[in-house]
């Protein structure tokens, strides 16, 4: 019997080792192939110029249109989503705390929305666009991406607010605070690192998604100058340019992939640093 215990332990250790190696290898290979093909393509020209030398598949120029487009799109969508998500997540954990059935219903619903493929959001955004007579534009893309990342942001924040102990909530109420004072002065402060992580998680999803913007933003060689103009994004730049028969255009796709990867890496690092910084006042229970 005793021996069996140790064999079991060994089997699981080997299993864990191999799954870790498997995941790490896959990740390393993805990053390697992006960097291997993307890094040589990266140059000042490619990140500082829009595509030139022909409509869509011109051989010259760079991917500035996609970089700027992605930036406009995901920053605006993240800000819009934040204005909806933060109050909703706080509302769920403070005002609805008593109504367990309702709150579980909302969580289930949000989890469903989280699981809906982004192409469905794209199709939904497209329907709205047509309804309002909008053309494929930056605005339509922002709305679609906002809808797509709201469930992610709300649920990520919700999971953090859930960890606030009832005792802390009671303590604030006992001092004569209202529920909204408790929400913004105590819950938010206690959960600062988690909230920032939630925002950056949603931002990462927004900037990396191609399907939700496929129908809604269109694609263009130019940098948009107003909300009603179509825009390029990095994921779409990869999608369209990789499928092009022209090698120079394909190379640009790899450059776009490298830039996107750097973006996401930078966001992750930023998330780590900021959450550590705001950890200071957190009460550990």
């Amino acid at each position, binding site marked *: 019997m005793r021996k069996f215990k140790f064999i079991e332990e060994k089997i699981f250790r080997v299993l864990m080792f191999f799954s870790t190696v498997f995941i790490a290898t896959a990740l390393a290979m993805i990053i390697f192939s992006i960097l291997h093909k993307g890094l040589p393509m990266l140059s000042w020209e490619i990140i500082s110029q829009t595509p030139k030398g022909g409509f869509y598949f011109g051989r010259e120029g760079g991917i500035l249109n996609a970089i700027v487009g992605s930036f406009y799109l995901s920053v605006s969508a993240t800000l819009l989503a934040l204005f909806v998500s933060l109050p909703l997540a706080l509302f769920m954990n403070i005002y609805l705390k*008593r109504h367990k059935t309702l709150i579980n219903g909302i969580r289930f619903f949000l989890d469903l929305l989280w699981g809906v493929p982004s192409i469905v959001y794209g199709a939904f955004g497209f329907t709205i666009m047509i309804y309002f007579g909008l053309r494929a534009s930056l605005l339509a893309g922002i709305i679609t991406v906002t809808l797509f990342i709201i469930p992610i942001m709300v649920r990520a924040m919700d999971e953090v607010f859930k960890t606030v102990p009832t005792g802390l909530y009671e303590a604030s109420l006992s001092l004569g605070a209202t529920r909204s004072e408790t929400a913004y002065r105590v819950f938010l402060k206690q959960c600062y690192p988690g909230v920032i992580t939630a925002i950056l998680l949603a931002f990462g999803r927004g900037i990396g998604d191609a399907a939700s913007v496929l129908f809604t933003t269109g694609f263009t060689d130019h940098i948009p100058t107003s909300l009603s103009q179509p825009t390029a994004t990095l994921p779409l730049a990869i999608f369209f340019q990789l499928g092009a028969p022209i090698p120079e255009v394909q190379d640009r796709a790899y450059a776009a992939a490298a830039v996107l990867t750097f973006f996401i890496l930078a966001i992750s690092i930023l998330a780590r640093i900021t959450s550590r910084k705001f950890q200071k006042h957190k009460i550990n229970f």
Partner: protein
Amino acid sequence: MDSNAKIITKNLNLTVGKLHILKDVNIAVPRNKVTVILGPSGCGKTTLLKSMNRLTDLYPEMEISGEILIDGKDILQAGTEITEIRRKMGLLSQRPYPLPMSIYKNIAYGLKINGGSRGKELGIRVEHYLRLANLWDEVKDRLREPANTLSIGQQQRLCLARGLAVDPEIILADEPTSALDPISSNAIEAQFSQLKENYTIVMVTHILRQARRIADHIIFMYLGEVIEQGPASEFFNNPKMDKTKEYLKGAFN
């Protein structure tokens, strides 16, 4: 009715589903005294305490009926200004829950949300309440540091100071020393004996010795019922009920 009573409950009943947690509780808590709610674990002491500032509202499964009169006003009635009721009662819980901010802001929080002091006056009041809780000398050089850097005993005194800062009339304490070391416990007990001049103190404990040390008035509960209540000297020297005698002898705990 005893006009010297600060808190009175009449036929207070509290149920969670089929569980009857408080059964026809009728008590009177005297003004400016330390009243100890005594009894073995799970007899409803904490629930009784939390119903007094309606923190029971946070638990939808709790159904409450009867009356809780504070200065003669029933706080269970609909339309009660609940924030105001809660401000009138400082709460100390079993373990300290400092707010996620600096030591200074922990005290200033209550002062600010209740509209009031700013700037220099705020600083003076923060110092005043930290002194009142006997914490000033230990923290005066580190007011801007996070409250989580204090020891548990200091945190509990910070929570006391924070509660006093909103100028309550009543202090509700739920086994406030259970997470503390003996020295910090003594500090809290000593505080209570001083503070009772200006405040009505209600403390829950299951430690008989602690009750003997600081109680002026005792409410003894067993399985959701109040068995006996009265002045501490009478309760300890001349208990009337058999259950009380058994409990004092240490027959159960």
